[in-house]
C-alpha cells in the first residue's frame, strides 16, 4: 500500500483525474487546430478555405487558453486544497456540480465554434478568443462561456468552504501555503471575471439574441480586457504554484522562503486587474492618461515576477547544493536533468524569463506601437501561456498521473523527450514569430502576403522565418503526440503499490517568518477593489459618455455625467417652479 493521493482521497482523485482528462481532450483538439493554422499561415500546406482559418484560430485559442488551462488548474487547485488542509472536499456532489457546469458550458461554446465549419446550421462563433464586437457569435457561444465561468466561481466557493471548515478546527494556524495560493488566485479571478460577465450578460448576449440592436464596441472591448489580462495570471498562478511547491522538491531542496511566496501571490491579487487597458494602447477613445496609469500598474507587476525568479532559482540551487553541487554556475550540473518533471518545469521557467523581455516591450506605451497587432505578440504569448504554463502543466502531469490514477508512469524517457522537444519546437516557432512581428507581419491573418509588397528582413529572410515557424509547429505537434502516448499508456497500466508519496516541498523559511497581515485576505481584496475602481471608473465613464451605453444610436438612460447634470437641472427647475407657485399662492391667499 503506497501513500499516493488516490490512497488518501480516492473520491477527490477521481475529480482531479476527470478535470485533467477534460483538459487533455482540449489540448488535443487545440493542438490539431494549431498545426493546421501554422501550416496554412506560412503557406506550406493549405487544405482549408482561408475563410475557415478564423474558425480554426478561434478553436485553437478557446480550447487551449480556456478549456485546457482552466480544467487543468481546477484539478491542481482541488489537489492543493485537499492535500495541504489534509481534508476531503466538504460535499462531493457540489464538487461534481461545478465540474459538470464547466463541462456543459465549454461543450456549448465548443459546438458553437465547430459548427462554423459546416453550412448545415447557421450556428457559428468565429469570433476568436478575444470575441470583440462587432464580431458576433451565436448566443450558444456566449451562454456556454457564462456557464463555464459560473462553474469556476462555484469551484472557488468549494475551496473557500474547505478552508473555512479547516479554520474552524485550526483557529490559530497559518493558512497552508498551497491553500493560500488557491484562495488569493480565486479572489483575483472573482474580481477579474466581473468584466467578462458584464460584457456578455449585459451587452453581447442580448445583442446576439436580438434584444438590443447595437453595442458600444469600445465598451465591450474594455470590459473584455478588464478580464482578458488577469486571465493570463489565472493560467499562470497554478504554474507558479508548481514552481514554488513542487520544483524545490524535485530539485532535491526546499522552498527558499514561504513569506516571499505569499508576498508574490498578494501582489498578483492586487495588481492583476487594473492593467487591462495596456492591451488597448492603440484604441482610440481612451485618453493617454488612463493608458499611462495602466502602464504603471503593469510595470509594477514585474516585481512579483522578479521575486519569483529569485525565490524559485534559489530553491533550485538549494536542492542542487544538497545534491553536492558547487561553484557559481557548477551547481546547475547537479540538478536532476534526467527527471522530466524537473526538466520540463525548469525549461518552462527559462522560456518565461525570455517572455519577460518581450512582455516589457509590449507593456511600454510607445514601444508597443512597434509591435501592436503583429506576430510579435503571438510569439510572446506562446512563451508565456504556450510554454511557461503549458510545459509546466505537462511536466507536472508526469508527477500527478501516478498520484491520481494509482498507476506507474508509462515511460519516463518518452516524458523527458517530450518536454525537451516542446522546448526546442517553441524556440524555433516563438523566436521566428517575434522577429516576423518586428518586420510588421500581422497576427490573426490567414494569408499574410500582399501583391506588390514584400516583408524585408534585416537579418535572414521571410522564407527562413516561415520555415522556422512551420518546423516549430511540427515539433510541437510531435511533442503532443508523445505526451498523449504517455497519458494513454499510463491509463492502460495496472495499479501499482510502489508509488511516491503525495508530498510537496518543505521550506527553509516557513510561515512562522511571514507577517500575520499577509494572511489578511479581506485587506488585500479591499485594496485590489480600490485599485480597480481607480483604474477603471473614469475610462469607463468617458467611453460611455462618448459612445453611449449601447452604441451611439440608442441612449436609453443617463449614460453620462452631463445627462445627470441635465436631469438635476430639470428636477431643480421643476421643484423651484413648484415652490414658487406655492409661495405665490400663499401670498395671494
Amino acid at each position: 500500500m503506497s501513500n499516493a493521493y488516490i490512497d488518501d482521497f480516492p473520491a477527490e482523485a477521481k475529480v482531479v483525474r476527470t478535470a485533467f482528462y477534460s483538459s487533455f481532450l482540449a489540448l488535443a483538439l487545440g493542438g490539431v487546430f494549431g498545426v493546421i493554422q501554422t501550416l496554412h499561415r506560412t503557406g506550406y500546406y493549405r487544405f482549408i478555405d482561408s475563410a475557415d482559418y478564423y474558425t480554426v484560430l478561434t478553436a485553437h485559442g478557446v480550447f487551449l487558453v480556456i478549456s485546457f488551462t482552466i480544467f487543468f488548474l481546477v484539478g491542481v487547485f482541488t489537489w492543493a486544497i485537499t492535500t495541504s488542509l489534509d481534508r476531503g472536499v466538504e460535499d462531493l456532489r457540489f464538487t461534481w456540480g461545478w465540474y459538470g457546469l464547466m463541462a456543459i458550458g465549454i461543450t456549448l461554446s465548443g459546438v458553437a465554434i465547430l459548427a462554423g465549419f459546416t453550412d448545415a446550421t447557421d450556428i457559428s462563433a468565429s469570433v476568436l478568443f478575444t470575441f470583440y464586437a462587432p464580431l458576433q457569435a451565436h448566443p450558444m457561444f456566449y451562454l456556454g462561456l457564462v456557464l463555464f465561468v459560473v462553474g469556476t466561481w462555484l469551484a472557488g466557493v468549494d475551496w473557500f468552504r474547505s478552508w473555512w471548515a479547516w479554520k474552524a478546527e485550526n483557529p490559530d494556524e497559518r493558512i497552508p501555503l498551497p491553500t493560500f495560493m488557491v484562495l488569493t488566485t480565486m479572489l483575483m479571478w472573482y474580481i477579474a471575471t466581473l468584466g467578462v460577465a458584464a460584457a456578455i450578460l449585459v451587452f453581447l448576449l442580448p445583442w446576439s439574441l436580438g434584444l438590443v440592436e447595437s453595442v458600444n464596441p469600445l465598451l465591450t472591448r474594455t470590459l473584455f480586457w478588464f478580464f482578458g489580462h488577469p486571465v493570463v495570471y489565472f493560467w499562470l498562478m497554478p504554474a507558479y504554484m508548481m514552481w514554488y511547491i513542487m520544483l524545490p522538491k524535485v530539485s532535491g531542496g526546499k522552498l527558499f522562503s514561504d513569506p516571499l511566496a505569499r508576498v508574490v501571490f498578494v501582489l498578483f491579487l492586487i495588481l492583476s486587474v487594473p492593467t487591462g487597458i495596456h492591451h488597448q494602447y492603440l484604441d482610440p477613445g481612451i485618453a493617454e492618461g488612463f493608458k499611462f496609469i495602466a502602464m504603471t500598474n503593469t510595470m509594477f507587476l514585474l516585481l512579483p515576477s522578479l521575486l519569483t525568479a529569485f525565490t524559485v532559482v534559489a530553491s533550485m540551487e538549494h536542492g542542487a547544493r544538497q545534491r553536492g553541487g558547487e561553484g557559481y554556475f557548477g551547481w546547475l550540473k547537479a540538478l536532476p536533468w534526467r527527471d522530466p518533471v524537473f526538466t520540463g518545469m525548469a525549461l518552462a521557467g527559462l522560456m518565461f524569463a525570455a517572455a519577460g523581455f518581450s512582455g516589457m516591450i509590449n507593456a511600454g506605451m510607445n514601444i508597443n506601437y512597434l509591435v501592436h497587432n503583429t506576430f510579435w505578440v503571438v510569439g510572446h504569448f506562446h512563451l508565456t501561456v504556450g510554454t511557461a504554463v503549458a510545459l509546466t502543466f505537462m511536466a507536472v502531469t508526469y508527477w500527478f498521473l501516478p498520484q491520481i490514477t494509482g498507476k506507474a508512469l508509462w515511460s519516463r524517457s518518452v516524458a523527458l523527450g517530450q518536454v525537451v522537444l516542446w522546448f526546442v519546437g517553441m524556440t524555433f516557432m516563438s523566436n521566428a514569430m517575434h522577429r516576423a512581428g518586428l518586420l510588421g507581419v500581422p497576427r490573426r491573418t490567414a494569408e499574410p502576403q500582399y501583391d506588390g509588397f514584400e516583408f524585408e528582413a534585416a537579418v535572414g529572410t521571410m522564407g527562413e522565418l516561415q520555415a522556422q515557424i512551420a518546423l516549430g509547429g511540427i515539433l510541437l505537434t510531435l511533442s503532443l503526440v508523445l505526451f498523449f502516448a504517455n497519458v494513454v499508456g499510463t491509463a492502460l497500466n495496472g495499479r501499482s503499490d510502489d508509488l511516491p508519496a503525495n508530498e510537496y516541498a518543505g521550506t527553509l523559511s516557513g510561515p512562522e517568518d511571514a507577517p500575520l497581515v499577509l494572511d489578511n485576505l479581506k485587506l488585500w481584496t479591499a485594496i485590489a477593489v480600490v485599485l480597480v475602481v481607480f483604474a477603471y471608473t473614469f475610462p469607463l465613464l468617458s467611453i460611455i459618455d462618448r459612445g453611449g451605453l449601447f452604441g451611439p444610436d440608442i441612449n436609453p438612460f443617463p449614460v453620462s455625467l452631463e445627462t445627470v447634470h441635465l436631469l438635476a437641472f430639470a428636477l431643480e427647475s421643476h421643484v423651484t417652479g413648484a415652490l414658487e407657485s406655492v409661495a405665490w399662492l400663499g401670498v395671494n391667499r
Partner: protein
Amino acid sequence: MCAMTDESEQRREIGHDEYDPVGTLALITVYFLIIALLWVFMYFVEFLGNEPTVVGSFLTVVGIA
C-alpha cells in the same frame, strides 16, 4: 503532509543559516545583463531602424505620407 526532500540523492543537509544562494545571484546577474543589452538593442530597432511611428509625425497619423 508537508514533507522533506527526496533524500535518495541528497548528500548533505543545508539549513537556513548556512545556505548562501550565490549561484542564484550569478544567474540573475546574467539575466539582468541580457535584458539590459536587449533594452539598448531595442532603441536601435525601434527608433533608428524604422520610419517614424504614430509618435513621430502628423503625416503618418493621417495616412498622407
